[in-house]
């Protein structure tokens, strides 16, 4: 027995000793062939890279996905436990053709194609569209034209602004002279003759990325392999990867993002209809609703970043598009308690306040918010402390009586005041045990 304990302690100690010396070393840069990714993620396009350690690339089926082979410097970042690519230091494009294999058979040979991303609501907007070939060039030209036009408008605006300033100064001078001459000027005349300030031009709402040359993969669901064939006919070293094309299990669900009023940066998701929102006491919640699709957790996590982890047996909802023009209903049974509209909100930073901020309705006319954007939009649900602690529901109403599919969620107010009663409940098994014990003891010890 002693031998076993000693052997066991030595083995564990040995493992830790082997690990420790490597803990404090500087990151080591290694030249690697990686695949740069610009792939469809259900709502738009996102980037990333696949280091040598990852042998599989995950993509959504039947969508255009751009990948490119590059030589770069890769190092391990212990804080995140992931490999980082130093594309700014070394970013060498690898030439060749990309072969796609099904089993051992080459089913497609891809050449590099020009492609660009089109953001209809601007670079920080929700959606992006992928264009390749002539279309990519057409859109970038359209964007360049729009930018050029905008710059021309800016130049015109600046000229108009200078003229306005001069005219305004002349106007003030004239008013001053006339007033000094004893003339009484009517307010209406001033308003009528006062030069009007020119309005600044609005920049193009959309954005288009400059075209890049990548391999565009668009394949049906299935398992494939890819490899890069160099111009001399050989297979490029480390270029072989497995390729998994997957699709969503369910589409068109409704998901919620909940912003708590007392911690607005700590957003939570309530995506599955079986999930229940538990609340205690007085609360203010801001709801955002989304159309969502359900994907395999491992595949989708790996799509977002090939170094992410996940489980193949698990599924996750992915928000694809905001749901607007609906009303949020807060109800108890059949009775609708509140009908809430979607409103933009602005988070005002406050010095010395308890939370350090205040969430107010966004008003572009307000001097404090002039020229600013709303922080977020949402449906504000205020729950008072006097509300009965029972079960409620939220739902999304399109029109009167017509609801958004899958928008129903349970909302429960927890009865915190009963928490003390739980101690009594916990003691219950002990009381039962004591009764059984005393009963048995009485049977065993004969009465005198």
């Amino acid at each position: 027995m002693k031998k076993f304990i000693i052997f066991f302690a030595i083995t564990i100690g040995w493992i830790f000793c082997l690990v420790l010396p490597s803990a404090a070393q500087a990151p080591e840069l290694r030249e690697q062939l990686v695949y740069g990714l610009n792939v469809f993620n259900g709502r738009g396009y996102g980037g990333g890279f696949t280091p040598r350690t990852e042998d599989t690339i995950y993509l959504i089926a039947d969508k255009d996905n751009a990948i490119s082979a590059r030589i770069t410097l890769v190092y391990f970042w212990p804080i995140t436990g992931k490999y980082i690519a130093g594309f700014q230091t070394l970013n060498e494009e690898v030439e060749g053709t990309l072969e796609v294999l099904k089993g051992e058979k080459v089913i497609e040979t891809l050449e590099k194609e020009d492609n660009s991303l089109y953001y209809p609501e601007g670079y920080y907007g929700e959606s992006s569209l992928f264009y390749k070939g002539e279309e990519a060039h057409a859109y970038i030209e359209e964007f360049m034209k729009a930018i050029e036009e905008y710059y021309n408008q800016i130049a015109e605006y600046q000229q108009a602004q200078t003229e306005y300033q001069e005219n305004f100064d002349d106007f003030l001078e004239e008013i001053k002279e006339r007033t000094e001459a004893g003339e009484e000027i009517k307010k209406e005349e001033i308003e009528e003759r006062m030069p009007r300030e020119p309005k600044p031009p609005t920049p193009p709402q959309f954005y288009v990325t400059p075209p890049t040359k990548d391999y565009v993969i668009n394949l049906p669901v299935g398992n494939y392999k890819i490899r890069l064939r160099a111009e001399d006919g050989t297979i490029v070293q480390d270029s072989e990867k497995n390729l998994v094309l997957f699709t969503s299990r369910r589409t068109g669900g409704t998901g919620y993002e909940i912003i708590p009023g007392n911690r607005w940066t700590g957003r939570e998701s309530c995506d599955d209809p079986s999930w229940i929102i538990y609340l205690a006491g007085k609360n203010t919640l801001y709801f955002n609703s989304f159309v969502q699709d359900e994907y395999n957790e491992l595949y989708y996590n790996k799509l977002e970043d090939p170094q992410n982890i996940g489980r193949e047996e698990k599924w996750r909802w992915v928000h694809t598009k905001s749901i607007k023009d609906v009303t949020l209903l807060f109800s108890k049974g059949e009775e609708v308690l509140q009908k809430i509209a979607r409103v933009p909100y602005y988070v005002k930073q406050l010095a010395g306040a308890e939370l350090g901020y205040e969430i107010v309705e966004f008003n572009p006319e307000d001097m404090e918010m002039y020229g600013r954007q709303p922080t977020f939009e949402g449906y504000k649900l205020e729950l008072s402390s006097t509300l009965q602690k029972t079960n409620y529901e939220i739902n999304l109403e399109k029109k009167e009586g017509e609801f958004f599919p899958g928008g129903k969620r349970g909302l429960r107010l927890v009865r915190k005041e009963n928490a003390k009663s739980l101690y009594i409940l916990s003691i219950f098994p002990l009381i039962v045990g004591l009764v059984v014990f005393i009963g048995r003891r009485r049977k065993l010890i004969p009465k005198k």
Partner: protein
Amino acid sequence: MISADPLNYPLFISTIIISFYLAILSAISISREKDQGTLEILFYGPVSCPTYILGKYIKDMLTYLVVVVFFLAYFLGVSVLTNLGFSYGLVKIIFVSIFSVSCIVSFGLFISSLTGKMRNSIIWLIGILIFFLAIQVGQTILFGMPEEKMSPILTYLGNTLSVVSRGVNWISPFSYLTRGIDTVALDNTFLYWLNILYSIIYSTILLVLSIFTLKRKGVRG
């Protein structure tokens, strides 16, 4: 808080604590009787090794079933008092825990049948459980290390621990409990019933091994 089954985690913790108690209880049950000499006297009567082991197993399982009744009453009470949902998932976990506890009890009985003294049974049980834990921790540490920092020895050790860890997942009775709870969280019916089937097979194998060991080692401490 957003959750489908808010009481699952407290139930999991409660089940783990009860499982440890039952593991120790079953691990000392045979060795204690051997140690005290009562087993030898018992076997002069119409008692065989299979009936004795099955009797011990049924006794421990009935103990857990009593605990299950308390679990149901307690969590139902918590739900009524606090308005936290008593969900279908909770009932599924309680059901799967019966089979997982069966694995733990069988494992304890097997350890007990191997040893002749009560103290040794406890040391063996705790030692084996710490060994399982150390394998998991060691593998996690090595798994988190970058490839280029792995010396050939560490790479070899990592691969070995990975294989051993996979084996431990089938040997450790607590893995069946965590896997069972996991299948409820995943809402995967197939994996849920598969885990129950594996638990039954595991329990049967260990009970047969316990009978075989008891027959071979005899009833004297």
